[in-house]
């Protein structure tokens, strides 16, 4: 059974440790909302969970091949159509059928439009639809609702809820209210690295 557990995790950006002592457990069907002011380290934490950077300390159980990541950028090719973009990711993840994903984010009418001609919010919806074709149980998303209008935010919440209903997990960093009252809120600012350890990464040797 898919679980995500982190124990006493510390994460660093640049040469500086930003968060430390992080711990939580996420069971299937649960979602975690990461909160914290600008620069508190949410992006850093998500990238570490996704395996893009090694943790500074502590361990991550689960994750790995189970996790799908969506960052600040959507990884869209402006010269490919909406459908082509999505099909590419479906093939990379070895799944098939992009129609449900298109439908979930109301992109079906735009399916043959080049991604470069979409508006900011439409691009974002396409980026989110990618999560559906990964077929992975854990979603790690960084400010997924940037540029989305209220209706699209609701679409997003509904999609996440459906994903959780199928036993999926989600870790979402956001500043706004997503309309997911059932999700746990995890405020990262409580775990800000203390002054000593703030420089305690590769700088350590020099102090």
């Amino acid at each position, binding site marked *: 059974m898919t679980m995500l557990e982190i124990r006493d995790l510390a994460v660093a950006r*640049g*040469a*500086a440790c930003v968060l430390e002592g992080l711990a939580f457990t996420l069971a299937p069907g649960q979602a975690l909302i990461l909160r914290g002011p600008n620069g508190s380290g949410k992006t850093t934490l998500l990238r570490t969970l996704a395996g893009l950077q090694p943790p500074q300390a502590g361990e991550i159980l689960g994750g790995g091949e189970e996790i799908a990541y969506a960052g600040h950028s959507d990884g869209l090719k402006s010269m490919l159509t909406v459908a082509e973009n999505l099909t590419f990711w479906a093939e990379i993840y070895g799944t098939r059928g992009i129609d449900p994903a298109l439908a979930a984010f109301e992109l079906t009418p735009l399916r043959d439009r080049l991604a470069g001609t979409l508006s900011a919010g439409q691009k974002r919806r396409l980026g989110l639809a990618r999560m559906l074709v990964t077929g992975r149980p854990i979603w790690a998303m960084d400010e997924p609702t940037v540029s989305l209008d209220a209706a699209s935010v609701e679409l997003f919440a509904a999609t996440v809820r459906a994903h959780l209903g199928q036993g999926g997990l989600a870790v979402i960093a956001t500043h706004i209210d997503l309309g997911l009252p059932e999700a746990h809120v995890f405020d990262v600012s409580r775990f800000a*690295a203390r*002054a*000593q350890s*703030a*420089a305690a990464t*590769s*700088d350590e*040797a*020099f*102090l």
Partner: protein
Amino acid sequence: MASIWEYANPVKFLRTSEKVLPVLWVLAGACLVIGLIWGFFFTPDDYRQGSTVKIIYLHVPAALMAINAWLMMLVASLIWLVRRHHVSALAAKAAAPVGVTMTLIALVTGAIWGQPMWGTWWAWDPRLTSFLILFLFYLGYMALWAAIEDPDSAADLTSVLCLVGSVFAVLSRYAVLFWNQGLHQGASLSLDKEENVADVFYLPLLVCIAGFVLLFLALVLYRTGTEIRLRRTQALIRREAARA
């Protein structure tokens, strides 16, 4: 007996190098001054090359150090990749400008020497060409260090470049040998070919080589210290910022 890895601690390294450096500077200066003065003023002219033979006291040591500096960087890069001692990464960084200067000296003195000997400043002789390629590798290595902000990634990436570059440098050497047969004389410092350089030239040359080696060591130690101090300064500033 203490492990040599202890000196991989930056602070320890600073303290030790502080003690060694003055000695090194003095020895290097002494060897260079003695060797060069001996070579310049008190050696006879060669019967074929005339007084230009005196250039050998700069050209050969610089050429040797140009190669050895790259070897040292290669070793330091390996140490960084395997054991992740910051001092070795910074030592590799510190050695590159020294190495590139040595290469430049070898090239410039060689070119100046070539004018009377071969009648041209430059010829695409395999050995000269290999040195030019080495020069390019140094340039690329230094440019990569300069282009990356995060010091640890810079160390990682330049180390890999150094490894890959070494393989290609060797490959280039074979390619160049194949491509053109040279004018340049072969290795003559090797022990079995004494006939090449007479003792009168040989002794001052050895002193000069010792001087170049010592100067290289002193410069690398000193520059490594500089790099360590810069890193330490940044680390402290970051900690201050984190406290604020």
